[in-house]
């Protein structure tokens, strides 16, 4: 019973193993990067545009609006990171329709890597927005006693992100595999539709949680008093 795409070995040479996770991750990266590059080769701002460009515009403006709703004021600074998280996880779960494809997010390595990216990104954006001293001061709010709890909460948030995504993806593929051995036709199709739904919801959740963590690290704590209007 295969627990994760880590165990599908495509090619092996000594210590280097090309397993399913690596192959599917690179396939997804290839599709996203090359697809976007091809679509954006000829951008048009007039009324006539290709449908692929409209599709990309819908996706990008949708993500921008969500980021703004969460409370990040300049979404263009964060959309590279957050949009990539969402698109990667969403495409990974969407492609489970393709026979033979195992989502790379079904392996704890991939989800741990994504969660570590968020762990690094939150201080990065926080320091960029508030300076090193301002960001570090946020750890001792509201009192100094909260310092260990704030640190622990950072680490446990990251762990929760990784395990949540891994658990959802792995359970989807595993339920499907188990059901296929029991009732071959109708029920696995229903479960695979459910797996698609939970995959998209988990992609949304992952990126929204990352956005919320970044927003809490970059929000202005002591708003400067407005300068008096010159009459």
């Amino acid at each position: 019973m295969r627990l994760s795409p880590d165990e599908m070995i495509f090619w092996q040479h000594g210590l280097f193993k090309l397993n399913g996770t690596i192959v599917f991750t690179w396939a997804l990266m290839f599709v996203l990067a090359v697809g976007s590059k091809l679509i954006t080769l000829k951008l048009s701002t007039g009324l006539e545009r290709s449908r692929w460009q409209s599709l990309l515009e819908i996706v990008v403006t949708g993500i921008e609006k969500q980021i703004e709703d969460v409370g990040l004021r300049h979404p263009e600074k964060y959309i590279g990171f957050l949009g990539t998280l969402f698109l990667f996880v969403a495409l990974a779960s969407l492609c489970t329709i393709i026979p033979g494809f195992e989502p790379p997010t079904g392996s704890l390595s991939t989800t741990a890597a994504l969660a570590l990216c968020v762990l690094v990104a939150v201080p990065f954006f926080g320091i960029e927005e508030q300076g090193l001293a301002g960001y570090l001061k946020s750890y001792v709010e509201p009192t100094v006693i909260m310092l260990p709890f704030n640190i622990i909460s950072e680490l446990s948030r990251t762990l929760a992100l990784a395990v949540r995504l891994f658990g959802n993806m792995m359970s989807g593929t595993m339920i499907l595999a188990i059901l296929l051995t029991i009732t071959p036709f109708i029920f696995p199709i229903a479960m695979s539709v459910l797996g698609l739904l939970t995959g998209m919801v988990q992609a949304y959740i992952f990126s929204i949680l990352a956005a919320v963590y970044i927003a809490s690290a970059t929000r202005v704590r002591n708003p400067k008093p407005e300068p008096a209007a010159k009459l």
Partner: protein
Amino acid sequence: MDSITLIAMASIVTAGLTIALGSIGPALGEGRAVATALSSLAQQPDSATTITRTLFVGLAMIESIAIYCFVVSMILIFANPFWNHIIAQAAGK
């Protein structure tokens, strides 16, 4: 009862109990969350998007508790280190 039987029995029973007991709490919590979200949607339909988004985020956090129990259960059944160790010992003898 020898060790192999004991380990197998304990793993199976614990796996079943983990997922059974571990799904009760999250299910109750999610039910309450959705009920409250529905009543606040009925009170203020204008903030439907905010309420829906917050509901989904909250549901995901509650769901992750059930996911943790599921992962432990799966580990006990499929990647059990005690079972692997005792089988390796029995095979080596």
